Each structure stands twice: as C-alpha cells, then as structure tokens.
C-alpha cells in the first residue's frame, strides 16, 4: 500500500555503561538506557506511548511501562529472534505508529550476559522438541552452528581463519577508539587472533562476541514530529525483516543463491532506492566473524565466495576504508547487545557524533544477525 520511506525517524538514543560485573538487574540497565534516550530526544517520559519489547524473559514492555509510570501505552509488540530481530523491532514500531497506535515508541535491549544477574520475568519458552535432533550430539551452543557454516565456506571458497580474523581486528580497532567499548584498552593483532584458543574449529575465541552487561535504547517517531525535537533526525529510508525456509536446517549453507540476508538486501535496497555502493557505513550484527563475512556477500558488498578477499582489503577499516564496519566495535569488541549497539552507533554516525566518525557519512546500513531470521534498516541523515 503505502511506502514507509523517509516518513519515520530515530530521534533519541541512549546506552547504559557496558561492563562485565554490573550487579544490576536487566530492568535497571534497560531503564537507564531508556531514560537516556528520552532525555536525548528532548521528550518527556509521558510522551512515550509505545514500547517495542525486548525478549520478555528479561524485560518485557510492561515492566518498562510500570517502572516509568506510563499509564497509556497503545503499542507493544515483541520481536522475533534475538540478534536477527533488533532492526525488525524498529520496523514493527513504525508500523504501529503508521497504524495510529502510538506516536513515540521506545525500543530497547538489555542483557546481563556477563554477570548473569537475571531476574526472570513472566515468560517461559516452549522449546520445540526438535532440539532432540541436535543436543544429544553435542550441538548445544550457537558457536557449533557457526563453526559448521564457517567450515563449509572455507571448503567452498578457500576462505581462511585469517579472513575471519581480519573482521575481529577491524572491530577491535574501532573499539579502541570508543571509550564506551569493553575492549577499549585492548588492542588486537591478526597474530593474537590466530593464537587465540579454538572454540568450535575453525572458529576461535576471538571470532565470537563478548558477553557483557549493558543496555541500549532508541526512540522512533514520525518525520514531521522529528523535526520539532532536539536532535537532528535520522530518517529511516527502509526497514524490513526476512526469513527463508533454509533457516530451519539450523546451519547456514553459504552457497545457497537465496537466503534470509539476500532476501533482506533486495527488500531494503529496493525500498530505499539505493545500491550497496551508496552506503557509507555498515553496522552488521557480529555475533560471529564468519557470519559477517557471509552477510557482506549476501548484502551485495562483494560477490558470493569473495568475502575472504574483500575483508582483507582494508575496505572495512576506519578512517580510510571504502565502507567502515561496526565503527563502535560491534558485538565482538564493544560488547554484545545483540546488535542494538549497531543502531545506536548508526544514528551517531549520521549525527556526526561518533568517536570513529566517518567523514561525510550520509547513509548507514544496519543488518541483524545472519543465519537466523533477520532484519535490517537503511538510515540517512
């Protein structure tokens, strides 16, 4: 029916500190990020009338409403899937606004991945009994799925562990410029990566994101409303979700011509009317290095199978690379907020307020995790 292009904007962002031992509940961290985002936008708390929830086992939408004393909330939805779902939450929020259910929607993510001071909420998950086909064989962690996909990519295309390492090093360099990042003070070389412990062969410890305690939030409203607010609006050119039946396998087959991320890419670029060469900054959810490499191919930044060569070329490095990646350090080095930090950093880039600021950045592509149902955004100044 209608197109959402440029009709909605992100007008506020907020983050809690990222730490390894906060001793705080996820609700407390979430509220710090949410109130910071409201403040950043120049809104009053009572202006918030929609809440895009996080996974309810942690902090559900009404926990936020209750704590903020919000008496009228006309929009609250829960996104599907952790790392793949974050940009999709923004998409749900603007759909809710377009349907007249809310005007200012706060979206957030709060994790206690490091200290695990979790306060279970009211939710319970009914796990599909399908995990009987995986768990008895020792497939108990996402790293094992990532290892299987990485191995296949190496076999098909000659990709190497050093290619994966190049992504870890890029993200770490960016984190070294970001005073907020958990790895701010810890430089990393490719040799360090190569010597790090094996996790799920061929993946090493440094191919995996760093679990932290932390929260991030942002506020979505209409473009008209955005122009009255404190910050320069960051417009949403495109927003989408995608999944393909191939995901049911669990392990990503990197050779498939069509998968969740390639579907997403097609949707986002056609909605925005752009091509990959129009993108100035990339924010790709990086729970594992190998998935970033595959996403670069599926999104069309290089050809299928050429991800290894592409990441080696320095294209992704601030300040001189053609298209800097995860400029705040990403999940790998800023700290794992399941990709919500990528949205916050994307907004900072377009405000010109990032610590590794890309000169003249006008467009940012935010992409959720690949290898699961995914989602993405194209943002512009």
């Amino acid at each position, binding site marked *: 029916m209608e197109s959402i292009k440029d009709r909605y904007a992100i007008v506020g962002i907020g983050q809690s500190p990222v730490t390894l031992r906060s001793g705080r509940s996820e609700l407390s961290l979430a509220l710090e990020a949410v109130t910071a985002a409201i403040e950043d936008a120049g809104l009053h708390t009572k202006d918030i009338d929609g809440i895009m929830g996080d996974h309810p086992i942690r902090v559900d939408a009404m926990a936020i409403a209750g704590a903020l004393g919000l008496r009228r909330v006309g929009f609250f939805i829960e996104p599907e899937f952790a790392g793949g779902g974050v940009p999709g939450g923004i998409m749900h929020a603007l759909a809710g606004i377009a349907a007249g259910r809310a005007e200012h929607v706060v979206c957030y993510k709060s994790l206690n991945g490091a200290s695990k001071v979790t306060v279970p909420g009211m939710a319970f998950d009914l796990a599909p*009994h*399908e995990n*009987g*086909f*995986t*768990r*008895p*064989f*020792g*497939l*108990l*962690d996402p*790293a*094992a799925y990532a*290892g*299987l*996909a*990485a*191995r*296949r990519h190496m*076999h098909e295309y000659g990709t190497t562990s050093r290619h994966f390492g190049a992504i870890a090093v890029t993200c770490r360099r960016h984190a070294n410029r970001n005073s907020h990042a958990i790895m701010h003070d810890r430089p990393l070389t490719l040799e360090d990566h190569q010597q790090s*412990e*094996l*996790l*799920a*062969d*061929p*993946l090493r*410890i440094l191919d995996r994101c760093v679990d932290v305690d932390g929260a991030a939030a942002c506020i979505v409203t209409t473009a008209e409303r955005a122009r009255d607010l404190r910050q320069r609006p960051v417009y949403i050119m495109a927003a989408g979700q995608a999944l393909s*039946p191939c995901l*049911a*396998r*669990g*392990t990503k*087959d990197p050779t498939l011509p069509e998968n969740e991320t390639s579907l997403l890419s097609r949707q986002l670029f056609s909605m925005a009317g752009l091509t990959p060469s129009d993108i100035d900054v990339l924010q790709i959810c990086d729970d594992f290095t190998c998935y970033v490499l595959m996403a670069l191919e599926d999104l069309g930044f290089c050809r299928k199978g050429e991800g290894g060569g592409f990441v080696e070329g320095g294209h992704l490095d601030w300040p001189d690379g053609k298209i800097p990646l995860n400029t705040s350090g990403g999940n790998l080095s800023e700290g794992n907020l399941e990709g919500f930090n990528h949205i916050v950093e994307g907004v900072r880039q377009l405000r010109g307020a990032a610590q590794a600021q890309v000169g003249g950045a006008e467009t940012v592509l935010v992409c959720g995790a690949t290898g699961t149902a995914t989602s993405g955004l194209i943002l512009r100044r």
Partner: protein
Amino acid sequence: MAYLEGLPPPEPHSDYNPFWEGCRRHELLIQRCRDCGWYRHYPRPLCPKCHSWKEQWARVSGKGSVWSWTVIAYPLHPAVADKVPYNIVEVELIEQAGLRLISNLIDCRNEDIFIGMPVEVTFEAMSEGITLPRFRRAV
C-alpha cells in the same frame, strides 16, 4: 562407552517419535511425502513442496558424506565440560541433495575428518531406551 555419554536425550514427541523408534530398530527413517516423494528432515506436518498431508517414514540407506564438521574445543556448555574436544558432523544423505542430519563421527580421529568423506550410519544405544544414529567412515 557411547560417544558423548550423558548428554540430554531427545524427548518423546508425537511429531518425532517414528524417527527414534526406527533408530531403536537400527533403521534410519526419514519422513517422506507420499505424493511427490520429497524427503524432509526435520519432520514437518506437511510437504513444503506440494503441500500434501500424506506422509510415510521411509527407510533410507544411511549412506552419505560429510557436508561440514566442527570440533568443539572449548566447553561452551556445562554438559560437555569433560567431553571436549569432540566432533559434530553434518551429513548429507545420498537420497536427496540438501537432506542433512546432525550427528557425530565415531571411530575416527578428529584430525582425519574432511568435507566429502563418505560415511554410513551406525546406531548407538544410550541410556533410557534411546538409540542415536551416528556415523562411521565408509569403506
């Protein structure tokens, strides 16, 4: 002793029980569409190709090749703290391109595993009346 003794066994469930019952009889059964013949794993209520609800549990050869593999080197989960390093293989069965199973390769050193290695199914009894399909290098 069985490979990875002590990991959580599959729970009984009406959608999946025929698979595990087959394993107990040392038969690898895969769900298959009675109308178009398409194999599907994991089991599904209907055929994603032709949307037929008619299904059978077809016995397959158990032959295939390693599609990918990993060696878990780090105890990511408490249940495997004393079991690393161990391998996980994804095996593509010969019956249909893309028809793949997660399993382990037994009687094979981890450093000898390679993609494309021909394998065949073998069955290992676990505790509680559960039998798991695992794979061995085929001659």
